């Protein structure tokens, strides 16, 4: 038998499930067994949502119309999973998750928007920014369908 240096595959799933608090986040205790509430806010192409984004902001968010309310719709995640078998070497496995349903906004009007910010509404923490070609909707429906949830196309993948 031999030991192999690796970032444990279980860590990647546990990180997505909030099982680790590395920093000195005083008072940050996760006592709940329920999933947090996540939301997806839509932003204008003039916004500056990026890796430095830490939380939801109403600045340059599309205006409320139709079924879209400020802050965006509530979304849920598919339970994080890993491609099998779990690797014995660092980077050999990929942990992935994707929103469980399409984001659908109806009777909606917005001009030139090109990103969504997915954020944890329970902890007020940003998760990810996803961009696409700038779109305009006029009294219509915007449907954003998620990619296939697997280790190569999942919405969030950690290798």
């Amino acid at each position, binding site marked *: 038998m031999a030991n192999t240096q690796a970032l444990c595959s279980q860590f990647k799933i546990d990180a997505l499930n909030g099982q680790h608090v590395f920093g000195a986040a005083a008072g940050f205790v996760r006592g709940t067994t329920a999933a947090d509430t996540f939301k997806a806010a839509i932003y204008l192409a003039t916004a500056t949502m990026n890796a430095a984004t830490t939380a939801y902001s109403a600045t340059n968010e599309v205006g409320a119309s139709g079924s879209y309310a400020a802050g965006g719709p509530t979304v849920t995640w598919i339970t994080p999973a890993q491609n099998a078998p779990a690797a014995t070497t660092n980077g050999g496995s990929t942990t*992935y998750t994707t929103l469980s349903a399409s984001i659908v906004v109806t009777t909606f009007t917005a001009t030139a928007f090109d990103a969504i910010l997915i954020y944890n509404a329970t902890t007020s923490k940003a998760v990810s920014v996803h961009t696409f070609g700038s779109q305009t909707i006029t*009294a219509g429906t915007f449907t954003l369908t998620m990619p296939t949830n697997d280790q190569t196309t999942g919405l969030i993948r950690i290798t």
Partner: protein
Amino acid sequence: MALITTTKGELDETLLEKRTGSEDNENESLQWVEYWLDSELVHRSVDMQLKKGINFGADITNLI
């Protein structure tokens, strides 16, 4: 009689000019539909499919 939600309320589809199109790139593919009343755009819907998400690489370093 199909009704279309427009900037001018619910209108009979037969009164409108329908235009459709699609786009495809490495990040997404989409289909759009527009309805025009005379020369005015009164409805536009988009159905977009993301092709992939974001990959975050993680790594550790050797102790020696």
